[in-house]
């Protein structure tokens, strides 16, 4: 990690040849604070008398060497993992030892999400819904993190976190109703597909604007801290969204105001067509943590147990120490960015195939279960058939339902309808009544 190496070098340079070896600084600021106390061994006395007093960096010290901090000098943050690509756990102590039913449930939901993705993707291709975004390859980041949280921990997401909702109990009908924008959609048919939200499941409604949820998560977490419920907030975002100004604001606010929020970055290699090489030059997103004074960790996003362990530990720190944590889950976006995108234009099929066939989160968990003899190909076949039936049934229910009444176009702009909006609603309905054959009124519930 670049920054720690830099600090190590500074420490060595500052000690002027006196042997002062720190292989790894666990917490740089604390370490330096200790070093600067008068009892610190090995450093010339005059350095402590001549300590910089600049308020902007009280833990710093003087050097007479002109030397730039070079991020290329350091090591990258390592990727934490629990099991290999064949589902074999490296170190039993790190196996979260979730019970068989929980793991089977997790696996079934991951595949159910995958099945729903395939069917809704196809339905968009047939023009039955207007838009869709799949979750291919990122299922472990959703279920691993969701399982490590409490249901009362509030989620603010980007848009590729449907698995979190599924884990919390969002039903296939709930998903389909939103995508079809029918009368049962909690969002009253106002937003594009995949912009889910659920009050009961503490999942704040998704919006298209990237990274805007991030400073909101910091604020939400601050309110949660004041309320003293012992909960935290988790905020999901992609590595592309992390380039937005709101991400910077969010990290900085959460750190300075000590908000218990887990910033969970899904680093899947692409923001639409933009590879990470065009997105940033540092060591990923997790690397920026030191600048904000935040703890951070990088995890194998295709390893559901690693994601679970990391999120659970992060949650503990966030709640107990009331501070933000950065989790960077490394993964790969196997699907197209959305149904409006053809990713073969900017990346090779070979690359995609590697992640789909050789390092897939669902495949890895299946190996784990097969190793334990909790799962076999017969069960796989049966579950696949059942999952498909469940999805198709919800799909056809959602498709048949009417859209919400037109009055819902006007409500909820404010808590109550201002007089001007009342007039506009009347104007709209009078107009439609005059031209009944020019508007698809038969698809909508009648107005009250």
């Amino acid at each position: 990690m670049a920054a720690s190496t830099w600090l190590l070098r500074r420490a060595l340079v500052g000690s002027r040849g006196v042997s002062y070896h720190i292989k790894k600084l666990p917490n740089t600021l604390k370490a330096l604070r200790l070093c600067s106390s008068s009892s610190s061994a090995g450093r010339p006395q005059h350095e402590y008398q001549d300590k910089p007093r600049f308020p902007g960096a009280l833990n710093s010290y003087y050097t007479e060497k002109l030397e730039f901090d070079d991020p290329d000098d350091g090591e990258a943050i390592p990727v934490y993992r629990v099991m290999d690509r064949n589902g074999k756990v490296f170190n039993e102590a790190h196996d979260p030892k979730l019970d068989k039913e929980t793991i089977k449930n997790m696996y079934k939901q991951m595949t159910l999400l995958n099945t729903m993705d395939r069917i809704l993707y196809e339905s968009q291709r047939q023009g039955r819904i207007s838009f869709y975004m799949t979750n291919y390859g990122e299922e472990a980041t959703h279920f691993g993190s969701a399982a490590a949280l409490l249901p009362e921990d509030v989620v603010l997401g980007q848009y590729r976190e449907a698995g979190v909702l599924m884990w919390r109990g969002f039903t296939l009908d709930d998903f389909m109703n939103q995508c079809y924008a029918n009368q049962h959609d909690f969002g009253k048919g106002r937003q594009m597909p995949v912009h889910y939200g659920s009050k009961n499941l503490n999942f704040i409604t998704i919006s298209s604007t990237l990274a805007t949820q991030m400073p909101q998560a910091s604020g939400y977490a601050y309110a949660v801290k004041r309320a003293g419920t012992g909960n935290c907030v988790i905020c999901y975002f992609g590595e592309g969204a992390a380039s937005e100004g709101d991400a910077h604001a969010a990290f900085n606010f959460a750190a300075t105001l000590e908000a218990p929020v887990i910033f969970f970055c899904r680093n899947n290699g692409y923001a639409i067509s933009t590879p990470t090489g065009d997105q940033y030059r540092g060591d990923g997103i997790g690397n920026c943590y030191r600048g904000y004074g935040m703890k951070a960790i990088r995890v194998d996003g295709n390893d559901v147990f690693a994601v679970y362990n990391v999120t659970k530990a992060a949650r503990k720190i966030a709640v107990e120490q009331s501070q933000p944590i950065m989790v960077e889950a490394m993964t790969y976006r196997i699907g197209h960015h959305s149904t409006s995108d053809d990713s073969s234009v900017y990346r090779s099929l070979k690359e995609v195939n590697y992640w789909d066939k050789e390092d897939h989160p669902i495949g890895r968990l299946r190996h784990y279960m097969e190793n334990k003899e909790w799962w076999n190909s017969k069960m796989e076949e049966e579950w696949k058939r059942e999952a498909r039936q469940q999805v198709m049934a919800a799909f056809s229910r959602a498709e048949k339902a009417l859209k919400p009444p037109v009055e819902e176009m006007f409500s909820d702009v404010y808590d109550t309808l201002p007089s001007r909006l009342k007039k506009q609603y009347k104007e709209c309905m009078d107009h439609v009544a005059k031209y009944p054959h020019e508007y698809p009124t038969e698809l909508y519930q009648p107005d009250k």
Partner: protein
Amino acid sequence: MAGVRELTKLLKSHLLHFPRKSHPLGGSRSAFQTYGRCASTLTFVPDSPSPLDGETQKMNLFQSLTNAMDIILDSDPTSVVFGEDVAFGGVFRCTVGLKDKYGKDRVFNTPLSEQGIVGFGIGMAAAGATAIAEIQFADYIFPAFDQLVNEAAKFRYRSGNLFNCGSLTVRAPCGAVGHGAHYHSQSVESFFAHVPGLKVVIPRGPIQAKGLLLSSIRDKNPVVFFEPKILYRQAVEEVPVGDYEIPLSEAEILEEGSDVTVVGWGTQIHVLRDVCKMAKDQLGVSCELIDLRTILPWDEDTVFKSVMKTGRLLIAHEATLTGGFGAEISSTVQEHCFLSLEAPIQRVCGWDTPFPHIFEPFYLPDKWRCFEALKKISSY
């Protein structure tokens, strides 16, 4: 260009060596003073407090705002006040003493980031807390435009009312101050008037500021509350010390009249008070003066009713003419009061330029420009 440079030079020397016996453009010194609206020349006429609101105390505008926030912090344990430099009392003294009284977790500084401040406030409000955010100058609200327009304003609508950030209020000092130039003078209300889901409020004095701020904070919708900074110290009146509210989306008729309806808000109301008096004294024209108070959603009915009576309308605001909120009022009134109108609706506004430094006296819709427009429509 030489002419402009010459003029600038003259003006500069005039301002730098103020006072002077005569104006370089031919006017007298006192005439120049009235052109140059600054803290020392603006006439603030205090309102009378309602006897129903009980005991009063002399307060200026910033003190009445502090008083309103004090009431909220005292009565609502979820409420917090935050922004750049609010902890020590704020650069305009609006939050003096609140941190000491309520603690640093309730009145606190944020990092210097407007998008962060508003995003943070939305998050707090979504969690059900009362969030009172301060943007140091309205001129610096634009980094938070995305959070206000795409997020705060649409939070309730897009979630089907599952979630809302109705307990968010964003306060920001606005308007001319005599020497604020581009980035300490702007009136930005019309940018927000185009955003369904937001409420936009501007008070004209301490009594109004306190009552409207209390309503804004308690309103169940996100409110952007603009405070005319030139009035922070200058506007002093007897403000009720208790808890009272002034309803949003209700204009106030300050003076009744029969010949011309005059509409404005914020500092401009005090300019228009002078204009109404000049019209009466010099032209024998009776003006009906209306303080709009809430820009969005605005009180159409009060304005319609007045224009149907007078047949003439003058709107004046400091913000630039093109796309200013005067345009919205003008076209709406034209649509609804067409048969009553006896003259074209007049808009007296800032020119379509950035807000200038040295040229401020020539930029503002001062009483002479308003008076001239009033003459024009009353004799149309």
